[in-house]
């Protein structure tokens, strides 16, 4: 028998603390696979955020630090600037990065920090119980938009890659989705380029990963993945927004 896929060794034996069907685990696996394939495991420090992935270091076996809410890009900057030989990943959710940490994210991007941000967008604050996030869709019901998100009250969903792509600092910016095997294969391709951007010292890199939150969306995992395709991707289209030479 030929091995087609094998769970990466960098994924620990510990069961994840995520809800059934939560795509955080998919993103974790993609990171672990690429770190192994690119021989980066021993150089890597992952900055974990506040949110459902706060215990991420339980699941990916690399050096790790735990940032305050929204401060992962600043902390990653501190590590990378003082230890440029380390491979530094900031793993952040949409509340963490696009709301409380938007300043840190934008400025890290503008400075062209040699860090890679994995940005998980599931359209709400998962850990705290499904409140509105900057990425919540218009009309979407959350625990703090019980009547649906209304532009006149809550403004519009934020498109982080599109915003960051306007800056000169980033070397690679893309949006992928974790809803289907095909999109997951593509997400890995994007993430590989983002890792290359750092590895080849080209600049800041970020991959947004459109994710689901079946529990707070009050859907089955399968329904949640369908909702991504039907409702989320039309608002947050998949694609590469900035591709510097040398990330391939």
């Amino acid at each position: 028998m030929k091995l087609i896929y094998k769970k990466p060794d960098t994924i620990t034996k510990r069961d994840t603390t995520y809800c059934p069907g939560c795509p955080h685990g998919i993103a974790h696996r993609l990171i672990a696979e690429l770190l192994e394939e690119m021989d980066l495991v021993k150089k890597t420090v992952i900055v974990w955020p506040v949110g459902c992935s706060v215990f991420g270091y339980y699941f990916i076996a690399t050096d790790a630090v735990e940032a305050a809410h929204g401060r992962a890009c600043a902390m990653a900057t501190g590590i990378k600037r003082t230890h440029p030989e380390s491979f530094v990943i900031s793993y952040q959710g949409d509340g963490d990065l696009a709301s409380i940490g938007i300043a840190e994210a934008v400025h890290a991007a503008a400075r062209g920090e040699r860090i890679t941000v994995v940005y998980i967008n599931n359209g709400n604050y998962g850990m705290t119980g499904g409140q509105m996030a900057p990425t919540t869709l218009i009309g979407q019901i959350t625990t703090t938009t019980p009547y649906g998100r209304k532009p006149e009250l809550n403004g519009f969903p934020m498109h982080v890659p599109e915003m960051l792509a306007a800056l000169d600092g980033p070397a690679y910016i893309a949006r992928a989705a974790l809803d289907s095997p095909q999109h997951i294969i593509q997400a890995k391709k994007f993430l590989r380029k983002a890792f290359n951007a750092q590895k080849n010292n080209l600049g800041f890199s970020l991959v947004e990963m459109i994710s689901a939150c079946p529990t707070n969306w009050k859907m089955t995992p399968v329904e949640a993945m369908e909702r991504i395709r039907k409702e989320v991707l039309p608002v947050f289209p998949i694609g590469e927004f900035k591709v510097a030479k040398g990330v391939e």
Partner: protein
Amino acid sequence: MEKKVIINEERCKSCGLCVSVCPKHVLRISDRINSKGYHPAELFDNENCISCGFCYLICPDMAIEEVRRPEPVKK
């Protein structure tokens, strides 16, 4: 024949995503129950599995530990 998909039943949370993406419908949620109270997914039709790995790709709990393909028979 050896199993083409190796599932760690203790890790499975019965989310059903692997079942939903399997193009050959060879996976299902079993009657068994793991220590967390979930019914793990199982490969019930090994023969018709094409080792595409879709289940591995979508599994959020890394419960699908291996996907293997039989070597072509030498003539």
